[in-house]
């Protein structure tokens, strides 16, 4: 029976970690929401300001990731034990970053660049590849709406550009042998 007592202690400890993670993630959630909101006017007004404003939340996001890093760094092998806590937010962050990167450069944000933008240190707290790819799928579902609004605003070359980009992305995704899982479902949704 002492064993169960010690399990209890260990579970208490892991619950304490969860508590810490929850508070760090809620910061991340907050900053992501603000960033998203800042980026949304892109659909109806000039792009420069929105992107700039959206980017102004990047330091906050970085700070939240720094907290997560600090927590996970103490138990590096348990990254995936707690992965669920930041998974969704990270996917949203990636999609926002990739979207604004595309708006600025017309190019695709790479996994390594995303990691760098978030100032993640690969050995302590990396960006999960699946999360990155799901983020891209999320972004690509945002693009059609953008196109529609751009056309309304008179930018008639926009559909062509987006279509080129998306079909590139689509063919790139086909290079991956996707397991029959969530990523695949997301990808199927982008077609």
């Amino acid at each position, binding site marked *: 029976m002492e*064993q169960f007592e010690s399990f209890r202690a260990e579970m208490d400890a892991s619950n304490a970690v969860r508590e810490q993670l929850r508070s760090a993630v809620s910061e991340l959630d907050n900053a992501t929401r603000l960033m998203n909101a800042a980026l949304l006017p892109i659909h109806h007004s000039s792009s420069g300001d929105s992107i700039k404003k959206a980017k102004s939340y990047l330091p906050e996001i970085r700070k939240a990731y720094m907290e997560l890093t600090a927590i996970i760094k103490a138990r590096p092998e348990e990254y995936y*034990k707690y992965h669920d806590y930041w998974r969704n937010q990270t996917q949203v962050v990636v999609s926002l970053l990739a979207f604004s990167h595309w708006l600025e450069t017309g190019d695709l944000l790479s996994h390594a660049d995303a990691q760098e933008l978030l100032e993640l240190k690969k050995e302590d707290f990396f960006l999960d590849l699946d999360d990155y790819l799901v983020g891209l799928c999320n972004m690509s579902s945002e693009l059609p709406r953008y196109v529609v609004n751009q056309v309304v605003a008179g930018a008639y070359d926009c559909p062509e550009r987006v279509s080129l980009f998306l079909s*590139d992305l689509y063919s790139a995704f086909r*290079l991956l*042998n996707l397991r029959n899982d969530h990523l695949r479902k997301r990808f199927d949704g982008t077609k």
Partner: protein
Amino acid sequence: MLRAPLFAATKRAMSTSTATNAFHSRFQQYALQLDATNERRERLVKASRDVTIHSKKVIFVIHRLNDSNRDKIVEQAEKDLAAVRDAHVSRVAREVEGVDYWKLKRAFSPGMQEFVEAATVVEFCKTGKLLTLQQLNSSLCGVKDASGVSFSVDIDDYLLGIADLSGELMRLAVSSAASGQGLEASARIRGFVQALYEGFCLLFYNVDGGRDMTKKVEVMLQSLVKIETTCYSMHVRGSEYPASIVDS
């Protein structure tokens, strides 16, 4: 309908833009990483299934146990268990270095739970005690992952395995009662499972696999009640049996 223009666009893009090629080669990199993980996961699922099958066999051996063959059966079961560990658990261990342990845990958890169940049932039949997680993991210290670190079972899998153990013990209790081995054997099992259940109630299950756990603890209670009922009816109706059966 939609496909044709998309393909046309793809071809055009490939021939015109060099940026495209750049990110295609990146995607080839990603593909390699994903493939590696998926293959690893598949191997783990297979290894885990083998652990399950062979651990089940160990448990079947234990169910052949009766008073006369106890030592022989326990010895056999122990030998089989060690074989499962060396042949199959080691295959799991090889794939789960560092971060991968938790990443791929769901692929090998079922096997480990079954292994815990087999190991603890054998230990119970041998000593009447609960094999602790620490004891279990020290028996695994020879099983290394790719970087040479000893493989270990984590608390969740251990607890889920133990929860299944109560079901096996219920079967043992009922069969020993049925074969007329008397009150003592079932009473021992009853005491053991009662203590186990109390231990479980001490923990809260809002941790990973919390839902699994809640369900299993319910099943555990059912098993316990069954054991208690068996003991009860033997106790109450004991006078109806010849003394030689009840006392033996």
